[in-house]
């Protein structure tokens, strides 16, 4: 059986994403318990300086050089990686649980006849069996999952592992493999699954103002439990009592149009770390938790005492927001009046 752990780098052509260093830290943890070796794979065109930079940090790197691949392309990633793994038997392949990783990772697993476990946030060996941890039931429970196959593809959740520290002076290496032909035009119906016919047209950076959230000291955040716009108006009134406040929320509130997407906290929104994070009616799906778990002090207010956000909180209050919000505002206004001697 293979003893190789392969980490697939996420990069933007100019630099390796932070999440790649987290994946390497995860891989090192598995390596230590299994005496496996860890190799980083970088896919793209003309990335030898990126590869060299990682090798200088003590990492063994394989660069899959694909002419013409200047931007992520799911079909090409799946093809070059499965070509590579047809020759280099993997035990474990680690991808990032990000918009990019989750685009190619499950398909790659199908091609490799491998198990695919997504959103991994822990690993353990028990009675000779390797188990991977992930959230289920919207974060209310955690499941240990064990692959039945020899090969396993994992997508590892960002923000769980501390990025691997560079080991300067350690022996790294770069090998380059030239993977030609993936993007050359072919006949329609050539049996390549149409990957050459799909085309990347461009990248739009976010138009939203996420500054408000990233610079706030106190984020007053609302979730599905917030209810109607009247309650949201009270939230804005309450936020005004805080130092450097910003109002944010979970994706569903943005989907409903109650907040704009620039105010979304979570894996697909902004990742924030304010001094205070107040979660009003936010159940705490893993997607959202990943965007706020670095906050210094967390308050969770929810009518459901079992909401996963309660596990993240320093202060928990079980209350129905419809009744509790007006009380909170009144309480703040009262203490304000008292303070000025009115």
């Amino acid at each position, binding site marked *: 059986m293979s003893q190789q752990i392969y980490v697939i780098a996420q990069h933007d052509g100019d630099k390796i994403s932070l999440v790649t260093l987290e994946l390497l830290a995860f891989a090192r943890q598995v390596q230590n318990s299994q005496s496996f070796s860890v190799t980083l794979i970088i896919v793209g065109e003309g990335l030898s300086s990126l590869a060299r930079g990682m090798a200088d940090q003590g990492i063994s790197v394989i660069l899959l050089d694909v002419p013409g691949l200047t*931007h*992520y392309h*799911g079909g090409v990633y799946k093809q070059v990686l499965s070509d590579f793994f047809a020759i280099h038997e993997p035990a474990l392949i680690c991808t990032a649980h990000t*918009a*990019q990783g989750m*685009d190619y990772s*499950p398909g790659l*697993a*199908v*091609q490799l006849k491998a*198990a695919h476990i*997504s959103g991994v946030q822990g690993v353990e060996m028990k009675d000779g069996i390797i*188990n991977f941890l992930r*959230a*289920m*039931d*919207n*974060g*209310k*429970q*955690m*499941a240990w*999952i*064990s692959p039945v196959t020899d090969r396993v593809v994992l997508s590892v959740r960002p923000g769980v592992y501390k990025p691997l520290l560079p080991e300067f002076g350690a022996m790294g290496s770069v090998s380059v493999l030239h993977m030609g032909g993936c993007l050359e035009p072919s006949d329609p119906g050539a049996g390549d699954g*149409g990957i050459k*016919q*799909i085309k*990347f*047209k*461009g*990248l*739009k950076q*976010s138009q939203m103002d996420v500054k408000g959230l990233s610079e706030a000291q106190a984020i007053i955040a609302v979730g599905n439990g917030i209810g109607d716009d009247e309650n949201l108006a009270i939230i804005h009134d309450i936020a005004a*009592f805080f130092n450097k406040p910003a109002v944010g929320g979970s994706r569903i509130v943005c*989907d409903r149009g109650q907040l704009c*997407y620039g105010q*979304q906290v979570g894996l*697909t929104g902004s990742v924030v770390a304010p*001094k*205070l994070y107040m979660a009003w009616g936010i159940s705490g*799906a893993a997607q959202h938790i990943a965007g706020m*778990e670095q906050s210094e*002090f967390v308050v969770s207010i929810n009518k459901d005492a079992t909401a996963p956000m*309660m*596990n*993240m909180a*320093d*202060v*928990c*209050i079980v*209350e129905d927001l419809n009744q*509790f919000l007006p*009380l*909170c505002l*009144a309480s703040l206004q009262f*203490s*304000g009046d*008292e*303070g*000025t001697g009115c």
Partner: protein
Amino acid sequence: MFLLKILVCTKAINENPGEIHLDETRMNLFDGFALEQGLLFRDTLKESIVDVICVGTENASEILTRALGMGADQAIHINSEAPPLYDPFYTASLIAAHARHKAYDLILTGVMSEDLMQGQVGPMVAELLSVPCATSVISAHLSREGIDLERELEGGARESWEFVLPCVLTVQSGINTPRYPSLSCMLRAARNPATCIQAETLNPPEMRQVITRVSVPEKQRNALVLGGTSEEKALKLFKILKEKGFLRENKEMV
């Protein structure tokens, strides 16, 4: 392009996981956006067909009735008494087995399920059928050659792509506003319910992964749970927040 043959893959979600006495089933939120997108394409290309499919226990038939009520043409229920909870490859294989010879131009599903959040079934169906896949699609328009779409990345950034048909798209929430079921469609659904196919007849695959243990998440912090009346909780809360210096000084407020 005069018509599209569309398949929408849906999942039944238990509203109160862990609370057995409450057996409320509803359609996965993200799949609602996928179904609406299929119906919007049919609104543009009138002769198009929108089929909807669900792998699951008999609870699945409830959400398929809703899908028909929203306007789907045909519903397919792949009945699996005990679908392996953690094996998306199992679900994907059954959907692919059904879709393989049906010549669908477009397969749509939600970006993930709300409960397990694995996000794997869509990309796996694409791979099993050897067609391209785009995940986390937040905008999709029919073009002369296929579909122009945008994928949502972290922090709200978007990638634009030109896709050809056939393909699989997994749809992110917020791409549209799912319609409510209509009375006429509900009546039609009652006359023309979901077709049920037994999973065993589709040659289900071997399991690739199993759950070995389930646990309750560990508390990340030592939480102080505030008690008392609602008024007392509010007063205690803001006393703590004031002591920590999170609140503005009073004079700034008035």
